[in-house]
């Protein structure tokens, strides 16, 4: 083991806001999101010797987080615990600003996407990772990444225009 423990802690701590944002994109609940971040950080620290210095730490932890979430989803499906996405936007009062309602509408639409689509949207559109890094996080070829991203956008676009149409 040649890694130095201290710097990776500081680097991971600096990533926490981005990790929370990504988690918020791919999970359904705030609590799930922070639980997921905690699990990913703990796993990353436990396996920190597997991280190759010089490669992107953010991509590595995103990958750990993605895998942890997929595992969790599978477990919940097995236990029949997969609850429907919380329709956060519906609990929001009418006096909220229009911008806020739009953000809620987008979050809701994203929560209705498939796992694969939510994750790719979270990586590229929310976090802003370049295609190459996003493909590495997902461990898929670039071509698969771009076609998945295109399909995810299409699905999201569709959900958003459905929402608009269903407005009174």
């Amino acid at each position, binding site marked *: *083991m*040649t*890694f*130095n*423990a*201290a710097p990776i*802690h500081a680097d*991971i*701590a600096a990533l*926490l*806001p*981005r990790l*929370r*944002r990504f988690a*918020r*994109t791919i999970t359904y609940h705030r*609590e*799930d999101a*922070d*639980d997921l*971040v*905690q*699990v990913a*950080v*703990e*796993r990353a*620290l*436990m*396996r*920190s*010797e597997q991280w190759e210095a010089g490669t992107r730490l953010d991509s590595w932890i995103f990958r750990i987080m993605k895998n*942890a979430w997929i595992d*969790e989803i599978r*477990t919940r499906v097995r236990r029949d615990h997969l609850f429907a996405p919380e329709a956060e936007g519906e609990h929001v009062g009418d006096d909220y600003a229009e911008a806020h309602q*739009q*953000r*809620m509408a*987008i*979050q809701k639409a*994203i929560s209705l996407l498939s796992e694969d689509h939510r994750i790719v*949207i979270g990586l*590229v*559109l*929310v976090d*802003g990772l*370049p*295609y190459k890094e996003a493909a590495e996080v997902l461990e898929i070829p670039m071509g698969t990444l*771009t*076609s998945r*991203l*295109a399909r995810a*956008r299409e699905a*999201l*676009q569709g959900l958003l225009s459905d929402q608009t149409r269903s407005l009174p």
Partner: protein
Amino acid sequence: MSKFSDDILMAFADGELDEATRQAVQQAMRSDPAIAAAVARHQALRSDVFGAYAGTLDEAVPQRLQLAASAPKVVQLDAVRAARQHKTEPRRWAWPEWGAIAATLVLGVAAGSIGVQGLQGDTQLALVAGKDGALMARGKLAKALSAQLASAAPAQGQVRIGLSFVSKQGSYCRSFMLAGAAGLACRDGDEWKIPVLAESAQGAPGDYRQAGSALPPAVLEAIDQRIAGAALDAKAEQAAQRGGWRR
């Protein structure tokens, strides 16, 4: 519609095109309103989605996550514990990871099959499976647990003692690190029983300065479950050591 596929227009909106293609798309956008509209749609979706989550970055990061990212220092253990106790909601999902790993390591040691990374040589010699299957400290680990104070700065490869405390069962317990492993030892008669032992990611062999600063969550958890009151301070630790760790 045009010679550009929608994937290309999407990649344009995402800033992923090489310079030549980018310029070609830009030119096409000027001459073909349909292309311009398609690009604008991709760009708008990108910025809307980005904006929907941007607020998360400005939120204060919960303390439990900051603690998870920082190596929990032994001196901060009380703070970790307090944070845990104040947590209103237990974790909604329980990954079995830590418990399973600790159990695996313990089984590996007990069975004498030391194939687990981080548990070699020194650790093997320092532990033995007792009559009831529990792990007991032996050799230099047992010696260090009985004699060494937490303030000691041990040489490379030696046992490092973390904190000492009185357990809810009324016996003394001490955390320790040795050769890439960390664990908890609790006094049982004249011996030290090891209820938990885990690989220590930070405990690079030879790097004793850092090795002392972090305990794996499994060990922290075990301390958490057992500790009654606060950890012993240096004076109380010394007194307990002089008293042979009997209560």
